[in-house]
């Protein structure tokens, strides 16, 4: 469901991956483990599922099978929500836990933004980040970070003080312009 400019859309999708060990004589009905994985496509989702299952449940790809991979599509992306994401990531010297908040219309968008944010602020690459939990914060009192709380406001109002002047598209760009740009917002 593509809405709007593709360069502005989030690439991450959320998948529910379920897998188990191969059934054997000793264990004819092995436990099925289910995970919610954020990935750009199914293949990466499956791969990440095995990454976690190996670490947590002692099942390797060679010993197990994926039972189902289903995309979890966000029901309502028509309004902005605040998401709290708990993560654990590897720093240069050890492992840290973090809780971060993001505002976005969808969970996948917020998670994508989290990865970009962690890369920018902490140089943490996506491979080293484990998402522990995600919550949609529906009550303003649950929002912990003042940065996100200030936008959780039904009467929000602020001026855009500095406007960058830009041609509507590359072909209309001119190398030389007669006057300086006007950056005030009217």
């Amino acid at each position, binding site marked *: 469901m593509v809405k*709007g400019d593709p360069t*502005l859309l989030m690439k991450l999708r959320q998948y529910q991956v379920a897998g188990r060990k191969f059934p054997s004589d000793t264990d004819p009905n092995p436990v099925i483990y289910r995970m919610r994985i954020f990935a750009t496509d199914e293949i990466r989702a499956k791969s990440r599922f095995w990454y976690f299952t190996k670490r947590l449940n002692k099942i390797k790809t060679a010993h197990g099978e994926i039972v189902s991979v289903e995309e979890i599509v966000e029901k309502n992306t*028509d*309004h902005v929500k605040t998401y709290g994401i708990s993560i654990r990531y590897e720093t240069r010297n050890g492992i840290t836990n973090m809780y971060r908040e993001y505002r976005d219309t969808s969970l996948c968008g917020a998670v994508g933004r989290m990865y970009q944010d962690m890369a920018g602020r902490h140089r943490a690459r996506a491979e080293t980040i484990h998402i522990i939990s995600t919550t949609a914060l529906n009550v303003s009192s649950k929002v912990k970070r003042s940065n996100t709380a200030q936008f959780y406001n*039904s009467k*929000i*109002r602020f001026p*855009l003080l500095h406007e*960058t002047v830009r041609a509507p598209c590359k072909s209309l760009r001119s190398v030389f312009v007669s006057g300086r740009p006007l950056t005030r917002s*009217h």
Partner: protein
Amino acid sequence: MAQARFVEIGRVAYVNFGPESGKLCVIVDVVDAKRALVDGPTTGVTRQQMPFSRISLTEFVLPVKRNQKSANVAKCFDEHEIIKKWNASHAGKHVASALRRASLTDFERFKLMVAQKKKSLLVKKEMKKIKPKH
């Protein structure tokens, strides 16, 4: 000097960059410091996030509630006749003329140059009457 225009829910904005450029939309909510949730059901802008760098605020504000449904936004937009007001406004006319200028053919540019020359000749004539040669 006019006051700064505010980003607020209901502010009508003009998209100045990207595939939706040239269209009007309404700010329905603010995502964060850099993005707004905009909607323009009657002008062809699907409800989506848009960075503030891509929109220019107009002087019009609609009485739209936060996260109002697209259908109601459309109703409000039509009731207040924003498109008509925009086309009649200074900024709207400037945008329309800029688009026209960008789409001129070489012959049309020639015709424009000839018309410009004629106009400046008339202006100079009148100026001579007011300010005689020293």
